[in-house]
């Protein structure tokens, strides 16, 4: 019966329970038929962002390297998994997997992220039928045990899932009672959490976007310190992933975190002693610059397919030597960055920087340092928006590209201000503003990427000129690619102008005026 699906209860059983005890107890009422049992080493996989956990799914890599994917309700049920076969231990990205429905799901969830093990252990699943003397199945039971490889005999988790058979509710209750008699208790947490909790895995989803709940009345200096420390922590969390070269998102987020720290320093400069602002910006800037080349290479390599598709078939293979070059440079660059990140110099620098902000930065007061944060927030957000709006008003088809890039940078600064201070204003309106801004930034971002990529390839071409051996096909392909990127960039520029006009129209001006204001105390509270 369709309605009977997913009716089941889970019981956590005591670790010390023996199989004999289990069988003896259940045999009081049932004939037990064990029809399947598997035992293997396995690992639970997820991305650094806990993408699967967030989607209430679980992935497991089996001993034979195949991967199984489950929805929360079907966890570890061998009959209900979506499987990916023919994989190796090196298959970590969705694009590494052969076509399957599981691959499609992973594609949406993982995007550029790699799957990594978050737990390794031994998994044993046993399936039982509880029957009557006539061999009629009355209750299905799945026993799942997970143990540490070092102590295979004492599981860290043992869970029985009882699945009812339509029309045999009385027997089902009987089985439940017997499990309780064994010392089992019903798992009340959602299946995924109770399983992960029992084996001591606590997923901590990572996102580079800060969740800051700064209070409007705290001092501006304290707010700035808190923002910077939060971003530095996010930066540090990505280091291991970069060193182990898990996926390219670690470096990307490393850089975003630094960018936000620098934005906080630059935009909130009035809270710091004047002579320190440049110094701080430079120190963080130096960290980011170290990784510029690796990031550029990552972006190109990730986009390889797209570049190939921009060219006619005959020119595609011409690009291969360039990508081979990129791969080679990337390999050495990853090593270089990993050495640097694990090195003393870097670690000392980070410790020093962290210490600066942990202790309230400086005793030296500035004009803004002791004012309430809300004053600083309103002032900075309004100023930044006016700046964008004024610049946008001047844009025509003749405006040089640089002016558009400047606006893009200003939009980014505004976006960061909203990340930092957004929680102090009315939630709904801030969301509208962010959506508008996001759409504008997306367009500006595409325009910028096309420009940067065109320049990067232009430089690569220029360097080829000085090499003794020239590969004509590569040069032709590069030419094709650069001109293709250029015409796309021109088209995108027009889109930018349209989006900018929308963002600075009367309606949006009004929205900013109304949203980012000093709230009256009472209103503030009720809105929250």
């Amino acid at each position: 019966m369709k309605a009977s699906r997913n009716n089941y209860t889970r019981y956590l059983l005591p670790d010390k329970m023996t199989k004999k005890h289990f069988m003896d107890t259940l045999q009081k009422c049932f004939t037990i038929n064990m029809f399947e049992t598997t035992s293997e080493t396995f690992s639970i996989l997820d991305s650094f962002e806990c993408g699967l956990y967030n989607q209430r799914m679980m992935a497991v890599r089996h001993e034979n390297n195949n991967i199984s994917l489950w929805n929360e309700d079907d966890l570890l049920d061998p009959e209900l998994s979506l499987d990916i076969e023919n994989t190796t231990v090196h298959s970590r990205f969705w694009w590494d997997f052969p076509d399957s429905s599981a691959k499609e799901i992973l594609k949406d969830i993982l995007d550029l992220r790699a799957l990594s093990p978050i737990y390794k252990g031994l998994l044993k699943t046993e399936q039982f039928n509880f029957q009557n003397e006539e061999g009629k199945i009355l209750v299905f039971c799945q026993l799942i045990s997970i143990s540490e490889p070092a102590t295979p005999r004492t599981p860290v988790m043992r869970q029985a899932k009882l699945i009812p058979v339509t029309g045999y509710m009385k027997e089902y209750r009987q089985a439940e009672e017997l499990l309780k008699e064994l010392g089992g208790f019903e798992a009340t947490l959602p299946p995924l959490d109770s399983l992960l909790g029992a084996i001591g895995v606590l997923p901590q989803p990572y996102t580079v976007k800060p969740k800051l709940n700064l209070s409007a009345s705290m001092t501006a200096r304290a707010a700035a310190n808190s923002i910077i420390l939060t971003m530095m922590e996010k930066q540090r969390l990505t280091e291991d992933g970069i060193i182990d070269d898990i996926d390219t998102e670690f470096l990307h987020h490393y850089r975003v975190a630094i960018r936000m720290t620098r934005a906080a320093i630059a935009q909130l400069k009035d809270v710091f002693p004047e002579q320190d602002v440049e110094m701080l910006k430079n120190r963080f800037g130096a960290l980011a610059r170290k990784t510029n080349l690796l990031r550029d290479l990552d972006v190109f390599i990730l986009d390889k397919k797209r570049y190939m598709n921009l060219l006619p078939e005959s020119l595609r293979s011409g690009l291969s030597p360039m990508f081979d070059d990129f791969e080679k440079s990337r390999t050495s660059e990853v090593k270089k960055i990993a050495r640097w990140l694990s090195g003393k110099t870097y670690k000392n620098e980070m410790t020093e920087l962290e210490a600066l902000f942990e202790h309230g930065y400086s005793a030296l007061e500035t004009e803004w340092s002791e004012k309430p944060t809300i004053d600083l927030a309103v002032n900075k957000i309004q100023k930044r928006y006016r700046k964008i709006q004024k610049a946008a008003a001047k844009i025509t088809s003749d405006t040089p590209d640089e002016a558009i890039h400047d606006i893009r940078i200003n939009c980014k600064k505004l976006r960061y201000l909203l990340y930092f201070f957004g929680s102090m204003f009315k939630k709904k309106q801030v969301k509208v503003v962010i959506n508008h801004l996001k759409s504008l930034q997306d367009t500006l971002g595409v325009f910028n990427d096309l420009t940067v990529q065109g320049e990067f390839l232009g430089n690569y071409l220029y360097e080829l000129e000085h090499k003794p051996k020239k590969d004509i096909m590569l040069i032709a392909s590069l030419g094709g690619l650069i001109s293709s990127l250029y015409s796309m960039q021109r088209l995108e520029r027009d889109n930018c102008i349209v989006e900018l006009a929308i963002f600075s129209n009367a309606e949006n001006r009004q929205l900013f005026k109304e949203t980012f204001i000093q709230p009256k105390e009472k209103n503030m509270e009720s809105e929250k």
Partner: protein
Amino acid sequence: MKIVASYSIKGGVGKTAASVNLAYAAAKAGNETLLVDLDPQGASSFYFRIGARKKENTGNFFSKKHRLLKHIKGSNYKQLDILPANLSFRNFDIMLNNMSKSKKRLKEMLSSLKNEYDLIILDCPPNLNLLSENVFNAADLVLVPVIPTTLSERTFEQLLTFFDRNDYKKKKIRPFFSMAQGKNKLHHQTIKDMEKKYPVFLKSVIAFSADIERMGIHREPVLAYASQKNHVQSYRTLFNEIVNIL
């Protein structure tokens, strides 16, 4: 939801064997399936190791959905449920007689299950009475096992005549040969003649086999314990033929 009846006026022609194995094949193919054992002897319930229900007031059987749901039992196979036989089914006729719309009661009752099942298979008792008429109204397809003998041919003709006289849709009737013996010349000839005369015969022929006979010992559909054998496979091809018709 589709309803298929396994029906014949004559007894011992392989109705229950067909019901049980078609239900099994349907569930295996991913259909949420209910086998309704309308035969008070409860043979199909027995094959699924389910005892007959205690005698009770059958009046509820035709009137209340929740009463009906309470009697459904899961089988040993996924997606396959059984509504077991009830000894009081013997009195269906008398009971139906006393009800309004007495020929459409079964149809109404089963349609209340349309969200629960993709396919309902009715294993019918060998009669031609008010319950049978309920079956003819309810079923999208009336599957008739015919042993290739003269006597069976006669009962099949009786059924056609009954449909004609009572304005039932004859298109619903799809016979197939059952318990056919490969070495029996008379069987061969009858199959040839009848197929010519009645093009509605399904192509699948279920042969007489000891494996099928042994269902009573195994208490399982023959497809579950001897699925590799050719004469057993024909239940699966029969199911595929039915799917194409539905």
